[in-house]
């Protein structure tokens, strides 16, 4: 069992191989460096199978009750969650490494770049396999540094400024994370994950911030502080601004970031799910932050003018989605989401890197003609999509009641799963409306197939994957219960989103039929007015810059006043 510790450390062999090479041997050694990375992937898969059959394994190199060195309590904890994450990280790491070996050839700093990438992969593996909060934090911080180094192109001024901003934002979030750890240790006297939650549940603590005015539960204070740390890595509003500036980095780096690194926040919340389950306040705030991030990320994506920025803001929206799922108590769904998103986004980034590379060699790219003509879709296609979108909830309702025996009306969580299923399939069908209808039956069949795939996948996520990650149904129910929103608010949110989706269908249909949709003047005006703030990313960059200038002005004031009086 101790051999499991080797899995996170295998990519370090690649680092060593790449760094010892010089000149032509560097590229040869880089190719050989793929062997340990692939071995790490197979090791992660083997770990997953082992853990699934035998249960969690914890390997500690310290005394849990009284660590000799509280700053470095080295230990590894392999459970289902960490095993799943390790498979994801090694899979993406392997693909990106193999891609980078060719993509980054002839580039200055080739060996350094590959070494940093694999060092990052190793640190991510150690982070997800950490046995306690402090060790997780150690690797959490090291990943921040790796991000800074990877995203930094030495001689490019905008990159330098962006990298510094990125590090400042992430470090701010990291230090709030640290405050959460200190508070957790101060209140509950432990840094072990399970014990922390058990002690928090067994002995609830109230903190008096302002006597008689502000009181807060200990679990809420701790989870809030830890969540701010998660917000930084998972690009949540308003700490998401480091993402756009990191896009100057080489494409494989972007792929690793968007597919691997940004999942750290979702992983952290899952790892501490028992603790988060004790604080409904934090979960509601998590939900709110998630929603705001989804909306802002999606809106910002719409005004971008290049591939990488579009994908970058898409990631922000998707991470908002993931955090929102955590805020609803659907922790397993969030993990499922981040896996699917990671694979999808890595593909998208690596493909865009390929396109950019080709465009450099073939100056006529992109040559696909822009079509501004209306989509010519048959009524049958529309009818299929429309009816399935509207009837789908009823079908799922009957299926889940009958087949899966899920108490629908008792649980907001179940409604959450169904709602996401419906939204996803609707979105997939809406996307399919961009297909040119060669034969409407083909498109309709594709729609139904997509529908079936989405329904099956979500039900799989709802039932099997949740059961895999959280075998005790009581825990799952407790998380949903903790995250439950007030009834009317929840119904309003669900109903409102349903209405928006259906209205979107109607508008799209009317557009393609050549009909003019009468929009109120204020709505048209609003669209135009929102464009400039969106282009300026809601002026958050300006706000942060002003904050920085304000601090510097204060510092200069202090310096002037102290001159001649205090050294």
């Amino acid at each position: 069992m101790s051999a499991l510790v080797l899995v996170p450390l295998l990519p370090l062999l690649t680092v060593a191989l790449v760094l010892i090479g010089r000149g032509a041997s560097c590229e040869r050694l880089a190719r050989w460096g793929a062997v340990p990375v692939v071995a790490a992937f197979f090791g992660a898969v083997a770990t997953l199978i082992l853990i699934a059959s035998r249960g969690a394994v914890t390997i500690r190199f310290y005394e849990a009750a009284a660590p000799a060195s509280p700053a470095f309590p080295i230990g590894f904890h392999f459970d289902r969650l960490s095993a799943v994450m390790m498979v994801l990280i090694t899979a993406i790491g392997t693909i990106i490494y193999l891609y980078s070996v060719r993509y980054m050839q002839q580039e200055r700093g080739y060996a350094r770049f590959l070494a940093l990438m694999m060092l990052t992969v190793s640190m991510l593996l150690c982070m997800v396999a950490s046995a306690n909060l402090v060790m997780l934090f150690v690797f959490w911080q090291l990943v921040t540094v790796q991000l800074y180094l990877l995203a930094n192109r030495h001689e490019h001024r905008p990159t330098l400024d962006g990298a510094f901003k990125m590090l400042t934002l992430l470090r701010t979030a990291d230090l709030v994370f640290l405050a959460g750890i200190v508070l957790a240790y101060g209140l509950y006297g432990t840094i072990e994950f399970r014990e922390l939650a058990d002690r928090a549940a067994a002995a609830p603590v109230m903190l008096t911030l302002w006597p008689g005015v502000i009181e807060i539960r200990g679990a809420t204070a701790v989870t809030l502080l830890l969540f701010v740390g998660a917000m930084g890595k998972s690009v949540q509003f308003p700490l998401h601004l480091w993402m756009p500036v990191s896009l100057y980095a080489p494409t494989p780096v972007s792929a690793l970031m968007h597919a691997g690194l940004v999942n750290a926040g979702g992983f952290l919340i899952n790892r501490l799910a028992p603790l988060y389950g004790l604080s409904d306040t934090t979960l509601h705030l998590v939900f709110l932050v998630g929603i705001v991030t989804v909306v802002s990320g999606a809106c910002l994506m719409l005004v971008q003018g290049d591939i990488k920025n579009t994908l970058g803001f898409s990631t922000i929206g998707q991470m908002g989605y993931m955090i929102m799922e955590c805020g609803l108590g659907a922790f397993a769904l969030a993990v499922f989401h981040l896996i699917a998103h990671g694979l999808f986004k890595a593909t998208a980034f690596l493909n865009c890197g390929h396109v950019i590379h080709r465009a450099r060699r073939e100056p006529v790219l992109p040559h696909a003609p822009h079509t501004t003509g209306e989509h010519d879709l048959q009524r049958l296609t529309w009818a299929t999509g429309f009816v399935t979108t509207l009837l789908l909830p009823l079908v799922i309702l009957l299926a889940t009641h009958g087949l899966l025996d899920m108490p629908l009306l008792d649980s907001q969580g179940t409604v959450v799963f169904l709602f996401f299923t419906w939204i996803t399939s609707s979105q997939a069908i809406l996307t399919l409306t961009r297909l040119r209808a060669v034969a409407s039956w083909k498109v309709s069949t594709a729609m139904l197939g997509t529908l079936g795939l989405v329904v099956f996948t979500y039900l799989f996520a709802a039932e099997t994957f949740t059961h895999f990650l959280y075998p005790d149904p009581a825990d799952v129910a407790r998380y949903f219960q903790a995250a439950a929103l007030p009834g009317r608010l929840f119904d309003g949110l669900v109903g409102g989103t349903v209405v928006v989706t259906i209205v979107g269908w109607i508008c799209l249909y009317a557009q393609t039929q050549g009909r003019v949709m009468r929009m109120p003047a204020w709505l048209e005006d609003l669209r135009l007015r929102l464009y400039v703030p969106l282009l300026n990313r809601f002026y958050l960059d300006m706000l942060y810059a002003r904050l920085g200038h304000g601090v510097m002005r204060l510092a200069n004031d202090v310096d002037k006043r102290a001159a001649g009086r205090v050294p």
Partner: protein
Amino acid sequence: MDAALFPVWLAAVPLAGAAAGLSFRSRIRALQTWTLLVSLAPLPMLLAMADQLRGTSWSPWLLGLLPVAAFVSVLAQTVHQESRSALPMTLVLLGLGLGALVAGGGLGVLLQAALLGSLAALLYCHRHIPGAVPWGGIAALAVGLAGLVVAWLASPPMSTLALLAASATLLPLAPVHGGYVAAFRGLPGNLPAFSAVLLPAVGFHDLLMLMPDLSAEMLRVPAMLALAGAIFGSLKALTQSRVRLIVAYAGLSLFAILWWYIAATGSAPPQATVYLLAVGLVTSGFLLAWHAVQARYGEVDLRAIRGLAYPMPRFSTFVFLLALAAIGLPPFGVYAGFMGMLLTPSLPLTAALAVIIGTLLAACWYVLGLAQQLLFGGHRSDLRYRDLYPAETASLALIIVLLLALGVLPPRLLDSGAPAASGHATEPFTWTR
């Protein structure tokens, strides 16, 4: 060796070495070699007396770091006529410092007073160094000297307060930090790099000796001064464009964290010692690295030099590692000490923690800004770049190794056995349970 005479021998060997080195003063290279050898001479003595040192405020491992710090600072020193006086003075300060740490009673006070007096004299003699700020520094050192005199002559609690003031001039605490800052700017040659470790170590030793006599009321003022000093040091560091001053104020703000911790908890666990030495080594390392730049390009403003990453890869690697260590990242000693202090059960959960963590965040800003300015960006075509020489490489490598060792070694190895204070400062904004 007689245990009673050990402090005398420990101080005498480097002092005698400094005197003997005067015969080499016309041959600078020979003088440098002699200084290197003599600076390591106390190490075998410390090892031989390891058993007798147990139960005192310092373990031999920690005392041994002072000769190593002296050695490293001299090793990285470029041989130059202007630094001729710095080499024997390194040995003088080493002897006085070691003696002050190990000796008790009147001898310890005498040696520490001699240390402060020597620093003040050096600042005065080299007041013409460009950018030196000697008068504030000399005044602060005078306060320290006065404190020592009062502590020797008066009785408690006056003597306790006087010694507390004296320790604050060495382990810098605003507003008597002038001597510490002036040492970085106004001392010649390698002395700033060595002072960065020596002065805080002696000040910390004084503080440890005072612990049993410090009541809660006495600690309240240092606690508040520490918070003010952390903010002041951070703001000052942000505005500087001279590397030595950035490093000096960084040291002020980082040591303020240590002051606050000791005042707030009334204790100095091994993690505090780890933190102290790590911060001292980091500031020393930065000064050594900057010395390498100065040796090549003169006393340049930070804004005038950039893009050293590619033409000077060894230098860049060390500077970046020092930056990571300074901002409290693992696996270095600053992180281990800082985390170790925060994860003690006696730490009060107060609003002051926000200031402490904010200080570390500010350090990230100006330290990484410094590193980024030096290392990245387009390099200048009018400069001829030359990477570190072997001696410079060895000295910076040793600093990094020591920082790593402080980071990963179990703190119990560094346990000083220091007694706790009789009370600890209570703060107005405490999160009550």
